[in-house]
């Protein structure tokens, strides 16, 4: 760190080699700090490890946290050292020595920070490509599929095949509903997915912009009207998970949450069977399954038409508007 160059004479005054001390303490503290962050704090990093995507995010946060630790320790150590040892002595009225450029310090600084930033850029890009965008919404045409093939069938599903499970997430003021096209297209207020099976969430909205946020699954995707936003997850632990709306969407935005459930595959298949049966009466009234729905073009019966009614009470997004509002 060549501190003597920045504070000439301060160490010399006491006969202490500041640079050697700082470097030694910094290395020792950094090793301890990195081990603590990676091994002690790491396993508790958000968002937890309830899905492949969440685990990947937790790993990313642990890696970034570990890399940041020596930087934080270096800054705080230098700051503390300066406060403790380089303060003005009583009665010392002399001015500090003028600063000149120091090639060694500048080169070290530029090389060091460039290496860290470039390494993070490479790591971040690889992580974005690899685990399907780290669980974020991937837009209408996801580029990175995490090696997942497109659904071979939009109307049936069997576990452990290339045929990825489709779950449509529909945001509306102010509730989430979920549609399962591969099980007869029923829609329900419950979100249930099987454990250890890749799931493709197709996220859309019937009115304003909402945001589907299944925090512990590592999934967050905006729900935009007229847009299908895709996000993937593979849950690895059975049990409950929370779903929240993460885009201010009106008066009851704060209560737009649900508890989802990750079930065993057999439990999930049984659930789809009972739910399809319970919902059969209303399923046939739903519009045909589609990736987006436009309430201005509903297929309405005679009486509604005679009264001049549509499914869009007020104005609605113009279909001519750009796809991404």
């Amino acid at each position, binding site marked *: 760190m060549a501190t003597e160059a920045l504070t000439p004479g301060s160490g010399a005054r006491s006969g202490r080699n500041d640079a050697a001390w700082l470097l030694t303490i910094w290395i020792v503290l950094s090793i301890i700090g990195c081990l603590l962050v990676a091994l002690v704090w790491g396993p508790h990093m958000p968002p937890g490890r309830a899905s492949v995507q969440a685990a990947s995010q937790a790993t990313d946060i642990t890696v970034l946290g570990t890399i940041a630790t020596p930087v934080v320790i270096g800054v705080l150590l230098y700051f503390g050292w300066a406060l403790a040892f380089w303060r003005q002595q009583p009665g010392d009225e002399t001015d500090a020595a003028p600063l000149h450029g120091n090639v060694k310090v500048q080169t070290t600084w530029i090389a060091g920070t460039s290496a860290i930033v470039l390494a993070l850029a490479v790591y971040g890009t690889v992580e974005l490509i690899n685990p399907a965008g780290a669980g974020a919404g991937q837009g209408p045409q996801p580029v990175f599929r995490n090696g997942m093939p497109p659904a071979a069938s939009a109307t049936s599903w069997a576990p452990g095949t290339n045929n990825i499970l489709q779950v449509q997430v529909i945001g509306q003021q*102010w509730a989430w509903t979920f549609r399962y096209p591969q099980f007869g297209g029923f829609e329900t207020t419950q979100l249930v997915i099987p454990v250890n099976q890749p799931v493709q969430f197709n996220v859309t909205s019937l009115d304003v912009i909402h945001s589907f946020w299944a925090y512990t699954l590592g999934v967050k995707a905006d729900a935009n009207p007229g847009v299908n936003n895709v996000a993937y997850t593979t849950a690895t632990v059975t049990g409950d998970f929370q779903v929240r709306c993460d885009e201010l969407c*009106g*008066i009851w935005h704060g209560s737009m949450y649900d508890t989802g459930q990750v079930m065993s595959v057999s439990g999930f298949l049984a659930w789809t069977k009972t739910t399809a049966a319970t919902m059969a009466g209303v399923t046939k*009234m739903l519009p045909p399954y589609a990736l987006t729905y436009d309430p201005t073009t509903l297929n309405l019966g005679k*009486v509604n038409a005679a009264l001049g*009614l549509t499914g*869009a*009470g007020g104005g*609605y997004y113009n279909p001519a508007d750009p796809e991404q509002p």
Partner: protein
Amino acid sequence: MSLPARVATLVVAFLAVVAGVLWVVFDIIGAQPQTENYMPYAQGGQVNVTMMTAAQTTVTNKPDWVTYFIQNPSTKQFDHTTYFAVPANTTVNVTILGYDGCTPLRNPLWGKVAGTTGNVENVQYYNGKTLSASQALTTFNSWANCAVQHTFAIPGLGLNVPIASPTTVAENNNLCGTSPCVAPADAGSPHTVVKFSFKTPGTPGSYRWQCFVPCGLGYVDGNGGPMSTPGYMAGEMEVQA
């Protein structure tokens, strides 16, 4: 102006501003419609709550907004509010007098009755002349038919009740025009009588409810205005111990 007079003026002006801010915060932003307290009227684990829907709110400064009313259990008047208090662990027998015409649901899923006792609602239709016999209904197709006017949904309890509407164009063009729809304003207007029951949870707390028909006509998505204002198409059920 003397110094004391100047100081006094400053203090008065300052207090006026503070009072103005407090008034905005508590009286405008924090305003909440009155709560109809059904607590003392519960008997044997049951309580009867009566509400009304209307095509307009002539008792407020928003006369063209659709709205709910709740009956005051002691005066039997229909008050302009959507807040009511009921006991925990109690069966609530709700009667809703549906005086509004039909509007299609945006999401037909809300046409299914859910979370009520037996997952049904009992509906009687009054066409202006006769009241039909009660029918137990489970599903309404608001796209194919003129079937639903509003819904009463408590998402936190999985409760969803479509409020049946008068069914024909003639009836819809003949709705009660002054609210609340009681005599003499209501001289035999077409309406429905919707009855259902549900059990309140054991945990006290406030459970928000809303309508899922985009009935805020003239507002973006039909979800502004009355849909976004407590006291019209949304409110809270206070469950008390």
